[in-house]
């Protein structure tokens, strides 16, 4: 039997990983449910037009039919900060980093937002469905030059990245389970697939684009791909790639790194890979196995993953319940993650972001600390008022009890022994006359710790 506190702590862990975290009251409410039921709820978001769309369009006028990637930011960051369907946004961010398309080339806000919506809709689908949709996504076609891939003169960019970065992967030596010939065949199979119209490098704004298949520009010759022969087209390539064991391993490895741990644990990844292969590449099934596994729930996983800038910014925004309506400040959320090293809608390359410890350099750490400590002490936020209220409502004896209550009120987080000890010393050295000052200072210190950089 686990205790009530242990259960809440576990739910908090799940919500930090499958989303951007929950506050004290939300955890309280969730704790009335079974853990497995919470997982099932997360895995089955209802994809329909979000209720706040009108509100968004009223406040972010420039992001309606967004011109550039920069215009599109507020629409997405609002959802990252507010959507009740946390996993839907978290998995979209995952695919945005893996099937990466960047504003560096596709400076086309409309297409970017459509792509994020594609990830919302198919991010928990069968991988082959997602891969086919993204292969026909106009933004992706342009990003990887497929409009320059013609019958008789295939451009290999998409074929190569599809195999190397989106599905089968390569090892440390740069070798994949596919040959150069497979890349060439894939490129031929995708000839005739392009966006229409091609986005012009025109700063006044893009046109809406759609997928276009030009049969006359498609290579209908027989191709050999991954050991099979046939007159393959793009759909066939996606089908063949998606069921390949290398793809199962690669996708499960990436999901594991994103949701569980930065250190590859191949026993665990292989288990997930079996689930992938027996479920016809069902992402939802793989995630269900992750979240319900003892491994995920264990102490060796909790608080061991470096928060990405998005984890930090949207985690804090949610914790302090910063925004009720999409006011002007909320359009700055993307700037906050940018200053911490994550330029949303503009990953550094087709490889996406390098996660983990690499997120943090001295400049970004200062940004993280100042951002979190400013937000947690901003008493005009409803969430901050509530945190203070919770702490005040508890009967507190010792300094240690006080710290524990603060940690609970911040959503059942934890500190390393050393940080904990230094904070209790802080309380012994400094005699606070005013209880509210004491609360604010300790909250500030907690969110400034190195421990707070982990989730």
């Amino acid at each position, binding site marked *: 039997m686990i205790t009530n506190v242990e259960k809440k702590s576990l739910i908090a862990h799940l919500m930090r990983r499958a989303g951007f975290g929950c506050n004290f009251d939300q955890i309280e409410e969730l704790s009335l449910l079974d853990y497995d039921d919470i997982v099932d709820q997360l895995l089955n978001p209802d994809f329909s037009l979000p209720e706040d769309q009108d509100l968004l369009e009223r406040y972010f006028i420039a992001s309606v039919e967004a011109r550039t990637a920069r215009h599109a930011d507020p629409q997405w960051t609002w959802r990252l900060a507010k959507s009740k369907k946390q996993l839907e946004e978290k998995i979209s961010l995952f695919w945005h980093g893996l099937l990466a398309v*960047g*504003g*560096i*080339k596709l*400076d086309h806000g409309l297409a970017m937002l459509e792509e994020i919506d594609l990830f919302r809709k198919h991010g928990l689908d069968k991988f082959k469905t997602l891969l086919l949709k993204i292969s026909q996504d106009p933004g992706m076609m342009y990003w990887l030059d497929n409009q320059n891939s013609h019958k008789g003169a295939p451009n290999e960019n998409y074929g190569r990245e599809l195999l190397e970065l989106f599905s089968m992967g390569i090892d440390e030596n740069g070798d994949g389970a596919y040959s150069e010939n497979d890349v060439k065949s894939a490129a031929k199979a995708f000839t005739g697939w392009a966006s229409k119209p091609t986005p012009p*490098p025109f*700063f006044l704004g893009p046109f809406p684009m759609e997928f276009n298949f030009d049969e006359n520009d498609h290579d209908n010759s027989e191709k050999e791909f991954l050991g099979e022969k046939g007159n393959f087209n793009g759909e066939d390539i996606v089908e063949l790639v998606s069921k390949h064991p290398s793809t199962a391993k690669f996708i499960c490895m990436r999901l594991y790194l994103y949701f569980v741990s930065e250190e590859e644990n191949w026993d665990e990844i292989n288990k997930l890979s079996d689930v992938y292969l027996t479920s016809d590449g069902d992402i939802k099934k793989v995630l269900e196995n992750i979240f319900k596994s003892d491994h995920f729930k264990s102490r060796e996983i909790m*608080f*061991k993953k*470096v928060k990405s800038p998005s984890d930090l910014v949207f985690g804090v925004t949610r914790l302090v319940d910063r925004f009720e309506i999409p006011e002007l400040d909320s359009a700055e959320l993307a700037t906050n993650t*940018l*200053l911490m*090293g994550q330029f949303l809608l*503009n990953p*550094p*390359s*087709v*490889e996406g972001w*390098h996660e983990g*410890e*690499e997120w*943090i*350099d*001295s*400049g*970004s*750490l*200062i940004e993280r*600390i*100042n951002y979190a*400590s*400013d937000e947690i*002490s901003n008493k005009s936020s409803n969430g901050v008022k509530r945190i203070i209220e919770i702490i005040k409502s508890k009967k507190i004896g010792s300094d240690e009890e006080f710290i524990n209550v603060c940690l609970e009120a911040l959503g059942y987080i934890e500190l*390393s022994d*050393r*940080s904990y000890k*230094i*904070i209790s*010393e*802080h309380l012994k050295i*400094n005699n606070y006359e005013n209880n509210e*000052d004491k609360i604010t*200072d300790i909250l*500030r*210190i907690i969110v*400034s*710790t*190195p*421990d707070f*950089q*982990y989730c």
Partner: protein
Amino acid sequence: MKKEKNLVVIQLSGGNDYLNTIVPYESGLYYDYRPNMGLKNESILPIDNKIAFNSNMDVLKKQFDNDNLAIMMGIGYPEPNRSHFRSMDIWHTAEPFESSSVGWLGKTVKNIDPKGDNPITAVNFGKGLPRALACPGVSVASVGALESYGLFTGVSGSQNREILLDTVDRIYQPMNPDGIPSLRLLQTGRGALDGADLLAEAPNAYKSSIEYPEDNPIAQSLKGIAQVASARLGTRIFYAQHGSFDTHTDELKNHSLLWQQLSVAIDCFQKDLKEQLLEEETVIWIFSEFGRRIADNGTGTDHGSGGVAFLLGKSVEGGLYGDYPNLEPSAQLEGDIHYNTDFRSLYSTILEDVLGVEASSVLNEKFNKLDIVKN
């Protein structure tokens, strides 16, 4: 070997229009291509009988006349990219063909201070670190405003801030070799805090008779640089940005204003350096991610390729380097100028003759240096 000096980088973000910076005022083609935006008469300051400075660059003209300003007459890289982001990345990483996340100056810092003893070997002024300074394991301070730099700057009441800082300072000690928080994270925190402490002291010791205009952001950045440089804390690379030079519309007004601001800022800075006795040991490098199209679009110019860059300082051999680009249609590159100097030649020169770092430790290929730094 030349004397080691400090480098001040001024990045002109957005793509500075070469043709209206250094104007080919004797070329009929220039005025044909720029019917609405060709500069003449009182808008130019002639250098010789062919080219002239934009009249808003009077300060740079003076530096040129004193042989302290070198003008790179056509700098760029092969297979130009006209995206701001990509092109700036290329300048930042010195990698024209491969996407990389490691900056050339970040690598340089690692070379200057391999053990990371000084967390402010490089200091960036502005929000967010430019990729030029990014390198894993390298501490670089990124300062919005020097007066408000550091942790908890929003906290009112210095008493309160001191006790917070004191405790956080004790938490960030790199003494937890294998566990969470990781040693790397603690070390990063240490560097950030030490850097902030060092920089916080700089304005206190700084004395100068120069008044930098308050409403001029690049002047304020250069003032910050002068403050840190005068404190002599071992900073070798300073970085500042000015812009936006992305003048698709209303160029005559905007481009002039930007150069006016920069001229005033450089004037203050140069005088200040003299006062601080830093004139001999400071070199300023001014660049932009690309130039703009030869032909105007009515009220502005669109993204082009190839551009102009400047090296400025007492130890710089002033003059014109390379030929002014040929504007003949047959000599154009898809409506743009061709570059004649690879930017990495300049980088090699800066690395070896300004910073005293072997160019091969930073750049993947060997490039011929330019004979541009006197001593």
